[in-house]
C-alpha cells in the first residue's frame, strides 16, 4: 500500500529550483533512502514534506489525502514527523523535556517516553541533563526519540550521519529495524551512500532535484550508483541517467 505519493513536485529554495518535477512513492512499512550529493535537493524535499516550505507546483498525497498545502503543525497530527538536519534540539530544555515536546499533539501509538527510553537506555539516566550538553550522537538519538514520540506513520530523517563518527552512526541505525517493526515507515536522506544501502529497502538517487536512479540496494551496482551520484555522463543499465 502506498503511504506517501509525490507527483511532479517542484520546490524552490530561494531562486534555486531545488526539487524539479520529482515523483516518487513510499510504501507502508518500508525504509526508503534518498541519496545524492550536496545540493541535490534532498533536504529541501524533506522540508517540503514536513510543511516548512510550500512547493511551487505538484502534489503530495499522504495516506490517501492531499496534504500539499497543509501547514507544518497540522502534518504532525496527520502522522508525519521530521528529524531535522542538524538535530535542532531545544537547547534550554532537558533531555526528557525535549522528548516530551515531541509528544505535544498526543497522537496515539506505540511510542511513549518509556518505549523511547527502552530503545535508547541511557536517556532514562540522563533525563534531567540539558540537551545542549549532549554529544552529537546523543543529540541525534534524542532528536529521533523526540520525533518518535509524535507517533508518526511516516518518519522523515534528514542527514542522520552528518558530523558524526561512523561507529556512532551505525549504532543509531541499529535502532531502525525496531522503529520500522513498530509500524513506522521511514524516509531517510543520507549522504553516506554505503550506510543508506545497508539499511534501506529501496533507494532513490537525486541529482539536481530529479530522481536519476532508483531500485533495491541489491539490484544496483556500485558503478551505477557512482554515476548517478556524481551525474557522470554515462548510461547506467536499467535506468536512464538524466539529460
Amino acid at each position: 500500500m502506498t503511504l506517501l505519493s509525490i507527483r511532479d513536485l517542484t520546490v524552490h529554495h530561494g531562486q534555486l529550483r531545488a526539487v524539479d518535477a520529482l515523483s516518487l512513492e513510499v510504501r507502508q512499512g518500508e525504509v526508503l533512502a534518498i541519496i545524492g550529493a550536496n545540493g541535490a535537493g534532498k533536504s529541501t524535499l524533506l522540508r517540503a514534506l514536513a510543511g516548512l516550505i510550500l512547493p511551487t507546483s505538484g502534489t503530495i498525497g499522504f495516506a490517501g489525502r492531499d496534504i500539499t498545502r497543509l501547514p507544518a503543525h497540522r502534518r504532525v497530527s496527520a502522522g508525519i514527523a521530521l528529524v531535522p538536519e542538524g538535530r535542532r534540539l531545544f537547547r534550554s530544555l532537558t533531555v526528557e523535556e525535549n522528548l516530551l515536546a515531541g509528544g505535544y499533539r498526543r497522537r496515539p501509538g506505540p511510542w511513549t517516553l518509556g518505549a523511547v527510553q527502552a530503545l535508547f537506555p541511557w536517556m532514562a539516566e540522563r533525563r534531567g541533563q540539558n540537551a545542549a550538553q549532549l554529544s552529537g550522537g546523543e543529540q541525534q538519538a534524542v532528536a529521533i526519540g523526540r520525533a518518535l514520540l509524535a507517533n508518526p506513520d511516516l518518519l522523515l530523517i534528514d542527514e542522520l550521519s552528518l558530523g558524526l563518527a561512523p561507529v556512532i552512526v551505525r549504532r543509531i541505525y541499529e535502532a531502525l529495524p525496531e522503529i520500522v517493526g513498530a509500524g513506522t515507515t521511514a524516509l531517510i536522506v543520507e549522504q553516506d551512500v554505503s550506510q543508506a544501502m545497508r539499511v534501506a529497502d529501496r533507494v532513490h538517487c537525486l541529482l539536481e532535484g530529479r530522481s536519476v536512479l532508483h531500485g533495491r540496494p541489491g539490484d544496483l551496482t556500485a558503478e551505477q550508483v557512482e554515476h548517478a551520484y556524481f551525474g557522470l555522463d554515462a548510461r547506467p543499465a536499467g535506468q536512464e541517467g538524466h539529460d
Partner: protein
Amino acid sequence: MGWLNAVVQGILLGGLYALFATGLSLMFGVMRIVNLAHGDLAVVASFLALALVGGTGLPLWVVLVVTVPLFALLGYLTQRVLLQRSLAAGPLATLLVTFGLSIVLQNVLLEIFSADTRTLDGGAFATGSFELSGAISVGYLSLTTFVLAGAVLIGIQLFLSRTGLGRMLRASSDDAETARLMGADSRHVYGIATAIAFATVALAGLMFAIRSSFDPSIGPSRLIFAFEAVVIGGLGSLWGTLLGGMVLGITQSLSAQADPALTLLAGHLVFLAVLAFRPQGLLAGRTA
C-alpha cells in the same frame, strides 16, 4: 535602623517591579517582540479599574478579579490580530507596531479621562501597616503586592516547566521552526504568551494604581522600570527578572533614604553599570 527598613521596603517594591517586568521578558523571550506599549497597558488597566469602581461601585478586589482575565483575553486577541501580522515583516515592524500602540493608548486615555492625575482608592488597606520590629514597619499593600507577585511568578514557572503548552512556549523561544515540527501552532503559542504577559501587566498596573498616582502619559516612564528589571536580572530568565526587580527596588529605596531626589537616578545608574560591566545580566542564561 532606618536603613534596614529601607532594604525591606526595597525588597517589597522589587516584587512589584518583577511582576511588572515579567510580561515584557516573556514577550521578548518567546516572540522577540519588544513591547513598547507595555507601560501604557499597565496604565490602561489602572484607568479601567478606576472606571469600573466609579461606574459600578463594586469593591476593588472584584474589579481586580475581572480586569486580569479580561486583559489575558485582550492579550490573546492583540497577538492574533495585530502582532502576528507584523511578526512576518521582521523585528522592526513589531517595534513600530507596539510604539504606535503606545501612542494610541495614551491618546485614547487622554481623550476619555483627561490629563488629570488620578489614584485608585484602596481605603484603609492601602495605607495601613504593621510593625515587624521597632524600626521596621510593613504596609499591608506592599506585603500583599509582594506575595501576589511571588505567587504569580511561581505559577508561571510551574506552567512553563510542568505543562505541555508551557514546555512548547520555552521550545518556541529556543527554535520556533522546530516547535512547529512538534505540531505547535505558533500563532496559538504566541497568543498564550501574550495573554500571560497582558494578565501580569494588568495586575501590576492595578497595584501601581493603588500605590501611587497615575495619568495617561505615565506609561513610558513606568516602562523604564520594567526594562531595567529585565536587563539587570538577565534577559529571558524569570528568576533573573525577580532578582532584577529586587535590585532595582532596593537601590531606589536605599538612595531615597539618603536623599529622596536621588531615587530614580540611582536606579538608572545601577542599570547602566550592569549594562556596562555585565551586559548578560546578573543571572545569565535562559531558563524560561
